[in-house]
């Protein structure tokens, strides 16, 4: 069986896989990183989004063998060792950007890639378009967009602290 070496959240793993094994299967079933979800398994919903070499990708539509030698970041790799959340995670918490939470790991991973690739910041419209590959069956997009808009200012260093959500 093929052997692949992946650096996942900074830790190197060498695992045996079948050629047909999907990256998400290796992450969830072999490395037990179950934060990455499988929603549709047809590359539409984005619940399985992880970063590969810094780019957001749908881990249900990549073979583990295609990732040999690459750097993977999953939702488990975002928070600091002391538990301090990544600014995007903190923004999702602050803005209550989730309802059932199933799509959240993929939303957060996609959102971080989007923010990283738009150093000048994104408008609400650009954020919504950028999230095209992530579906929320609770239709909780509104707070997700608010969270990303707030997090980008922190990630780009424009503000020191996350803007607090308005009390409603």
């Amino acid at each position: 069986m093929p052997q692949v070496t992946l650096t996942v959240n900074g830790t190197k793993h060498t695992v045996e896989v079948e050629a047909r094994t999907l990256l998400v299967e290796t992450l969830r079933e072999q490395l037990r990183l179950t934060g990455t979800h499988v929603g549709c398994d047809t590359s539409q919903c984005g619940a399985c989004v992880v970063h590969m070499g810094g780019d957001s990708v749908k881990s249900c539509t990549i073979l583990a063998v295609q990732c040999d030698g690459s750097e993977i970041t999953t939702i488990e790799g975002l928070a600091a060792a002391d538990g301090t959340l990544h600014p995007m995670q903190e923004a999702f918490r602050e803005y209550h950007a989730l309802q059932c939470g199933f799509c959240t790991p993929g939303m957060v991973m996609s959102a971080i890639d989007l923010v990283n690739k738009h150093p000048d910041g994104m408008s609400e419209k650009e954020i919504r378009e950028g999230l095209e590959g992530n579906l929320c069956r609770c239709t909780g997009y509104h707070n997700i967009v608010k969270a990303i808009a707030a997090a980008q200012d922190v990630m780009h260093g424009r503000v020191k602290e996350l803007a607090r959500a308005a009390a409603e």
Partner: protein
Amino acid sequence: MYDFAYHKPASVADAVKILAADPDARPISGGMTLLPALKLRLNKPTAVVDLSGIAELRGVKRDGDSLVIGALTRHYEVATSAEVKASIPTLAAMAATIGDTQVRNRGTIGGSVANNDPSADYPAALLALGATIQTDKRKLAAEDFFTGMFTTALDVGELVTAIHIPIPKKAGYAKMRNPASRYSMAGVFVAQTASGVRVAVNGAGANGVFREKAMEAALAANWSADAVAGVKVDAGLLNGDIHGSAEYRAHLVTVMAKRAVVDAG
């Protein structure tokens, strides 16, 4: 998904050798179409030949009056390439609308072209721009390459290696996306090229991407949205399905052609 052998050659020559030895092997680049097809067991290759290790297939460069885009160049790279934005801005803008962010981070121009999905964006662009598709053994004009729905002139085991695109005087693109799948229901790419005005249509043709010659003649005489507004598209050549009848698509083609001319300026 059925299992298969996996190869990752480091050169085109090695990839072609593996593919020649096994006609049931399939090349994979981004895998954005092949992997979903394998999951559905629509295809059962004996081996998958991963092209991603072939450095010579990557990148965008200017070569005289043409852009040369390596087959493994991802949609995201075309969308953000300074060279593409400078010489064919519409092509960069079009690449930014393919699939979604994650698809653009993986999917490649060579894969899209070799698959020739009737709703894909690149085939219309390359047909309108008069591009040449370079393979491991020959060069083919876009009109000779795209032969029908999901069909190309590629032989079994033949690989697309690069796309040569003559830089047009002007080009524009517009598509009507299906509101759910976001695939093109009708997309029109217009270009003023050195060999005249060319108009290509995706998403609507019953036999895949095609040139709309009546619109080309109208735009050659008068480059304006009004010029194509009066051109009736023959619904008999178009695809009808639950998303829209052939007659509706014929109407969309005209509307998208007008918008594409406006986009081109």
